[in-house]
């Protein structure tokens, strides 16, 4: 879609009485496509109304400007209509007269009959025919707002600007009006920008949601695409598998902004002690069984033993939020899905690249692919069976969920599907859902399966909703799953702290792999502070036997590997496999200097030094394997990834650089 409006690097400042200036908006850039519905969301004082006024031409930007079809807007006009929360109807005029007054004013040269029919058409459009001769005082709040919308649309604006249009109404009445507004905007085909602070309202109505940071100097924090299919309703939207994950992203953003405003928390200043540059650390994790090393390092005193006195473990809602907190420096370090440091370093899907480093693999294995139980009942027991099912049901496009594009869940699930001739982009749909929402979404029937870490596979099995079709032991036994990720710049600023952190976690990893500790580990993780699950859901994967929902539970001692067999070494083969797969599926371009990228992200020397100091028997970093072979056919020679990509790159992937 061509862009109709451009907010071109707008900064808006207001003079203060004391001679200073208040910068409300700083460097806003936004393209608005014709016919698009866009929401501006943020807390009070985030400048959303200031931006709306600029679009309306009610005020002028201090720097930059607003372009409509490439021409700058300098004043208000009937091609941009604003609807305010307080309706602004003339109380002594009826519904029809209120609308007619505006039409007569803007189109004085049109014949009377045409003006009349414009008025009637718009009264009809908002469903107010029976109330056309009523006065505002005889109308409910929702009806008054519909009159205001009809009046605005009757002037045939190119842009409809809504400033908290339903702010004065109760949540359920809003729900009904949102539905009507959606239909009206679609019928009128008008480009719309709405200011709101209601999360569900923004998701329901918008094509894109622009999340604004707090003022002063408010800027665009994030733009969320809302891929929900249309027509939408409250119910179909909430039943869409990606709805609650989008909602969680918005709520997460707003909560961060709220916290920032309440406490003005900046990343905590470094407290140096014990020969370390910084002993106060904030480390992010996701409630999953494999956050175990972090939990153990704190609960069993490994952090303390190595001088890290104030370690706060911060439970994050999803990988995206965790990533943002690492970017902002709110987190010093984090448990990360193995592909994340590479994706952040390269810039996943056009994001700003940020050099990352990892010196420790926290866990290997631990994931599984779970399908809805009905596939097992239909005889699907491996990838080839799934392929047959898909071929036999061309009318149905299956939806599978994973946790992050750069996660091993996504990359291995894709390779598994591809190994059976299922195109993961064309034949099925893959979506991102935070781990704790997987089971509810599978039960709701809006996804058909998922690839996720424990305890969520076990939970689906225990609830009788899903069966496990493959575990990591069969998919790729020994792949790196979670790593300790830090910003390259952080590693440079706090080298001794980093070393102490790696050492503490290495010892915690060793503790996790001692069989006699596994039962205690299940109980430790069960605490609501960490995973918050029934220990009986955690122990099958940690202690065994593991129940796939297919009959007799079986022992699977390799389900999680935290230490033994050289598990903790950053593995160069893993790095190259990840870089190759990110490029294979078009998530990142493949870097020319791929060897250098792998070597810069993986701090293998640091690992080696720490492992030797800790007397770890498996201190030596793994040699690069000669071949990484999955599912018999999918074979990468890590010394020649380019050849692999020539043979395997998905048609959707960007050209190799």
């Amino acid at each position, binding site marked *: 879609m061509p862009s109709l409006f451009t907010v071109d690097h707008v900064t808006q400042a207001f003079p203060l009485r004391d001679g200073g200036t208040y910068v409300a908006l700083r460097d806003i850039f936004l393209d608005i496509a014709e016919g698009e519905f866009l929401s501006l969301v943020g*807390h*009070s004082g985030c400048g959303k109304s200031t931006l709306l006024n600029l679009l309306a031409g009610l005020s002028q930007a201090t720097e930059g400007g607003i372009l409509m079809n490439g021409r700058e807007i300098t004043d208000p006009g009937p091609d941009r209509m604003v609807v305010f929360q307080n309706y602004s109807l003339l109380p002594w005029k009826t519904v029809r007269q209120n609308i007619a007054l505006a039409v007569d004013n803007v189109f004085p040269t049109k014949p009377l009959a045409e003006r009349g029919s414009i008025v009637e058409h718009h009264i009809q459009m908002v469903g107010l025919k029976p109330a056309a001769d009523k006065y505002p005082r005889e109308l*409910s*709040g*929702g*009806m008054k707002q519909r009159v205001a919308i009809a009046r605005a649309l009757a002037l045939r604006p190119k842009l409809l600007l809504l400033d908290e249009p339903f702010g004065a*109404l*109760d*949540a*359920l*009445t809003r*729900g*009904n*009006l949102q539905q009507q507004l959606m239909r009206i905007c679609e019928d009128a085909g008008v480009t719309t920008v709405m200011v709101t*602070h*209601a999360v569900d309202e923004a998701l329901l109505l918008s094509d894109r949601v622009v999340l604004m940071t707090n003022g002063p100097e408010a800027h665009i924090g994030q733009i969320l695409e809302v891929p929900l299919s249309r027509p939408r*309703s*409250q*119910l179909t939207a*909430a*039943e869409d598998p990606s709805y*609650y994950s989008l909602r*969680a992203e918005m*709520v997460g953003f707003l*909560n961060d902004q*709220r916290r920032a405003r309440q406490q003005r928390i900046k990343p905590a200043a470094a407290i140096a002690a014990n020969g370390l540059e910084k002993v106060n650390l904030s480390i992010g994790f996701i*409630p999953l069984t494999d956050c175990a090393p972090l939990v153990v390092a704190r609960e069993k005193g490994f952090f303390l033993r190595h001088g890290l006195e104030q370690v706060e473990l911060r*439970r994050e*809602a999803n990988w995206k939020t965790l990533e943002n907190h690492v970017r902002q420096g709110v987190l010093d370090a984090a448990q990360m899905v193995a592909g994340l440091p590479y994706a952040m370093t390269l810039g996943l899907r056009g994001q700003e690249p940020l050099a990352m480093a990892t010196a420790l693999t926290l866990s290997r294995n631990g994931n599984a692919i779970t399908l809805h139980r009905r596939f097992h009942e239909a005889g699907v027991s491996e990838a080839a069976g799934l392929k047959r099912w898909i071929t036999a049901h061309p009318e149905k496009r299956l939806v599978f969920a994973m946790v992050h594009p750069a996660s091993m869940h996504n990359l291995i699930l894709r390779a598994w599907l591809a190994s059976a001739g299922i195109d993961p982009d064309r034949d099925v749909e893959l979506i991102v859902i*935070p781990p*704790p*929402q997987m*089971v*509810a*979404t599978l*039960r*709701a029937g809006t996804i058909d399966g998922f690839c996720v870490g424990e305890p969520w596979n076990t939970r689906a099995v225990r609830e009788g909703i899903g069966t496990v079709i493959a575990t990591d032991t069969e998919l790729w036994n020994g792949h790196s799953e979670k790593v300790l990720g830090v910003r390259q710049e952080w590693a440079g600023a706090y080298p001794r702290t980093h070393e102490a952190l790696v050492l503490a976690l290495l010892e915690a990893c060793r503790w996790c792999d001692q069989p006699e500790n596994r039962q205690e580990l299940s109980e430790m993780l069960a605490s*609501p502070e960490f995973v*918050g699950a029934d220990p009986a859901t955690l122990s099958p994967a940690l202690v065994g036997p593991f129940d796939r929902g297919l009959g007799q539970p079986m022992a699977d001692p390799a389900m999680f590997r935290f230490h033994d067999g050289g598990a903790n070494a950053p593995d160069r083969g893993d790095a190259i496999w990840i870089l190759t797969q990110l490029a294979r599926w078009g998530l990142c371009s493949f870097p020319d200097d791929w060897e250098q990228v792998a070597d810069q992200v993986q701090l293998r020397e640091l690992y080696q030094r720490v492992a030797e100091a800790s007397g770890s028997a498996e201190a030596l970093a793994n040699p690069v394997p000669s071949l990484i072979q999955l599912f018999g056919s999918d074979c990468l020679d890590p010394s020649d990834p380019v050849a692999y990509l020539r043979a395997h790159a998905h048609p959707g992937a960007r050209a190799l650089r």
Partner: protein
Amino acid sequence: MQTVTRTAAHGPATASEPFLVIDGVTKVYPTPTGPYTVLDGIDLEVAEGEFVCVIGHSGCGKSTLLDMVSGFREPTSGEVRVQGERIRDPGPERMVVFQNYSLLPWLSARDNIALAVNNVFPHLKRNGQARTIVDSHLEMVGLSEAAHKKPASLSGGMKQRVSIARALALQPKLLILDEPFGALDPITREELQEELLRIWADQKVTVLMITHDIDEALFLADRVVLMTNGPAATIGEILPLPFPRPRERARLMEMPEYYDLRNHALDFLFRRYAHDVD
């Protein structure tokens, strides 16, 4: 479950009767075009210390129901009993907090509360205990600093804190909240919800609250009562909430049951009992 018999209503409180019993309550208003039934046969039992939210579209008779519990109106048939006593009038053991705060604008926050306390407990005024009650309730809602301010210089959230403090200062057994946070911005609303839960847990008061906000009900309540649309509205469903307490919003969002219940309530309100009129 226990069966409440009609005879229990007229006899003395039975030991096993639930704290609050809404017993076959119907409310009919006469109109020029004939009788109009707002509520039709409402049965609800609320245990002592329970937190119950009532949710439904506007016009479903929620406020009429609260009025009969608070004693502002009488049922056309059926009755409401608190601890076995039939409700006929308003009383300080059942305090109502409205969305519009209902504070006296010429009195400070402290004096608004003191007026109520002195009225209900005149004997406490003489020995200075009234002052202690007022102060402790101002503190409970975090308004000690702003006690001298008049409503006009308080934010919406602060005004609602004063109303809640005033209601609780009268030591009611039942706190009745009529969409108390509807007029507040989302951040303030969430803060007050958290504060309300803390106070409810401390004071061990029974709460009956009306709301339009599904997320608010899911965060606060032990049970959510879903009303059908009027006329002749009834209780459509009662959802017991399995979420452990103390509740933390972020943790709630991680629970699969949260989404099941939320979708269930959405389905009830926007499909099964969709409401076209606004």
